[in-house]
């Protein structure tokens, strides 16, 4: 037996079209729907002391006539925007299950065993997976960022700086997904301040964003004053110190807990020291337009930098040189990189060039950065890159060797002479005011070929030596040997 029924389909099709229209309007809204980037998270402290965040449209962004479900859901209920690059389909599918926090937590416990066994490579995909599954797990972002930025090193414990843009990208993603709390803003600022140790304006920006979060702990709030100093904003540092000291004083009065009193005393000590240094370094005098005669920073001290780099064996360099500063504490940055290294800039790179957490940095590119420690006014350091071919692949044809010193990174006892911005610092041959805008730094660079670095071809029997014109050996002689070929390190002023 077969049965069919005849109904008038026209009104039914009309009903389907009506439903479809309603669905379309509800889902997509009316008018231009704001994107995730057009919102900003604003933290509020409630009367009961708890904090909460509200996502509001940035100024200048028009409110749509009717906000669709899709846009509202992305704003309020999506767990976080995650960069999908580098995730396998099974990792994506994991995110579907309703047990994301649980699985993420278990995976993180598993990662701990890899830390213990030193299997650092195995931790990277776990970090990524955990942050995708549970973007609110701040510990993973913070630890992952530190791990990527600090723990990938060569045999001589030099960091693989090709990973730093990825570490920063992870920090930025963590901050985006956890905008209610200060932690990832602080961690990202710390990466700029401590690891990159240059471009301090970025550290200041991130620390300032961390300060805006009410849950930031007092001891960490104080660090921004150091970042201001290193960014050349000494007056801002002083203002902030006074404000922090005032707050800490009130807090210590309200609650005489040891931690509160200790924080107040620490700030008082720091304030005293800063004021003394500002006077001794002639900061107030300079601000008032008075002559700096008699102040520690006057006349500027000539560091007398000179250097010699010898390619002793294939992929092995010896850095030697002079630096006339007697107190211990100077570290001169030496960089060896591909001449065409992507996003390179003098003595570094544009670290913040990507938002993608790429756990596989450019394996065919070489970037070596070493700190040359000065003792008794000389430095002498052997850099052996032969044991780590994956970190130093040397696939390019041309390379650059750079020397760089920035007084802003100097320890306080050296800054007492050089001051915060290098007012008391000079170098007859290598002072540079171009590579870091508005700053007085020492900088020089020279090109070197792959054949020279690998001691092959014409350079099999000859020893390449890169030398500044003013370089003198320990016994005070210009150093020359028959089998060595000298390449001059350029200077604007050296003879």
């Amino acid at each position: 037996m077969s049965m069919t029924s005849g109904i008038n389909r026209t009104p039914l099709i009309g009903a389907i079209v009506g439903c479809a229209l309603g669905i379309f309007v509800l889902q997509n809204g009316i008018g231009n729907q704001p994107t995730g980037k057009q919102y900003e998270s604003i933290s509020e402290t409630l009367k009961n002391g708890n904090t909460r965040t509200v996502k509001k449209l940035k100024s200048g962004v028009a409110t749509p006539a009717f906000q669709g479900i899709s846009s509202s859901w992305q704003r309020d209920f999506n767990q976080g925007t995650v960069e999908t690059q580098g995730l396998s389909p099974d990792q994506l599918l994991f995110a579907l299950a309703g047990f994301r926090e649980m699985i993420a937590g278990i995976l993180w416990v598993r990662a701990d065993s890899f830390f213990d066994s030193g299997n650092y490579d195995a931790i990277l995909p776990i970090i990524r997976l955990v942050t995708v599954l549970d973007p609110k797990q701040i510990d993973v972002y913070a630890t992952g960022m530190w791990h990527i930025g600090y723990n990938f090193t060569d045999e001589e414990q030099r960091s693989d700086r090709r990973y730093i843009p990825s570490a920063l990208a992870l920090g930025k993603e963590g901050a985006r997904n956890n905008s209610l709390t200060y932690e990832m803003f602080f961690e990202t600022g710390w990466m700029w301040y401590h690891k990159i140790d240059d471009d301090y304006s970025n550290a200041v920006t991130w620390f300032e964003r961390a300060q805006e979060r009410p849950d930031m702990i007092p001891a960490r709030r104080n660090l921004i004053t150091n970042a201001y100093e290193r960014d050349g904003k000494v007056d801002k540092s002083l203002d902030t110190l006074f404000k922090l000291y005032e707050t800490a004083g009130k807090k210590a009065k309200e609650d005489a807990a040891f931690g509160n009193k200790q924080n107040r005393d620490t700030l008082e000590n720091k304030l005293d020291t800063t004021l003394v240094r500002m006077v001794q370094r002639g900061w107030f005098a300079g601000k008032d337009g008075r002559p700096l005669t008699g102040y520690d920073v006057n006349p500027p001290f000539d560091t007398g930098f000179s250097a010699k780099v010898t390619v002793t064996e294939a992929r092995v360099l010896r850095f030697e040189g002079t630096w006339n500063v007697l107190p211990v504490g100077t570290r001169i940055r030496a960089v060896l990189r591909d001449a065409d290294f992507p996003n390179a800039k003098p003595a570094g790179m544009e670290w913040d060039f990507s938002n993608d957490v790429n756990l596989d940095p450019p394996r065919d590119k070489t970037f070596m950065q070493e700190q040359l420690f000065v003792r008794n006014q000389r430095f002498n350091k052997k850099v052996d890159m032969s044991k780590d071919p994956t970190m130093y692949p040397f696939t390019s044809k041309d390379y650059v060797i750079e020397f760089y010193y920035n007084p802003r990174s100097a320890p306080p006892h050296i800054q007492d002479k050089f001051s915060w911005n290098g007012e008391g610092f000079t170098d007859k041959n290598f002072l540079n005011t171009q590579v870091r805008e508005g700053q007085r730094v020492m900088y020089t660079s020279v090109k070197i070929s792959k054949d020279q670095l690998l001691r092959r071809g014409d350079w099999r029997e000859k020893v390449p030596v890169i030398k500044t014109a003013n370089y003198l050996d320990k016994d005070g002689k210009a150093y020359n040997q028959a089998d060595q070929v000298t390449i001059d390190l350029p200077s604007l002023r050296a003879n």
Partner: protein
Amino acid sequence: MFRPIASIAATTVGEAIRRKVLLIILLIGVLFLVVAPGLGMLSARSETTVLRGMMLGIIQLTSAVIAIVLTVYMIPNEIERRTIYTILSKPVQRWQFLVGKYFGAVSALLMMMTLMTSVLVFTFWLQQRDASAIPDLIKAPVMYFVQMSLLAAVAIFFSTFVSPLVNFFLSGGLYLLGSLFAPFFQTLQESQGTPPAAKVFAQLINTILPNFANYNIQNPIINPGQQIQNEGSYYLQVTVYGVLYIAGLLVAGTIVFDRREV
């Protein structure tokens, strides 16, 4: 007009609660809810966060399996067992049969989800001793119910023209896709590397697909601290969205079922 629908729905509920496979799935879900507080200790994450995430996950997953298993067999079983002839020989229209079956399935689903939510509330209260968090916690199962009703409508629509096995994977796949697509839709739309054609395609998919992710409201419940703007209005919108989609699917199912020879 509504009496036949109510009768068919009541019969369907009776059949559903007698089906052992559904009761076993429900029992497993309830068991997991009961042991969930103990499993939280395995994780390195805050125990409350894991507990909330896991319990809501269990309810969602169990409900989705029940919704699919319950509905994929409904029409094909009636045809296979030839009981449909007895029903359609009475003054019952095909659309009434389809709608009655759907409402029966949704009612059974409501009963089962209510049971699971009660267990969730009791277990959570027993573990946390914090009644203030419970109203927030219940919002998620309520939205999951609308989500599962939509899933049941998808499955019942497919059951009018495909076999149960195919329907199981088709509905399950659509549920996965509808839940997965939304979180990455924004990333795709905002990424500068996405070609314009792909963006248009993504917009099309986001509109056509039943957007199950709209009902995944658990994130602010698991990680509290964010104020939801116009919360009530959002829930109303997604409910209306669900009702419209369900209505569209039932009408489409009626057209297909009406043309089908049984």
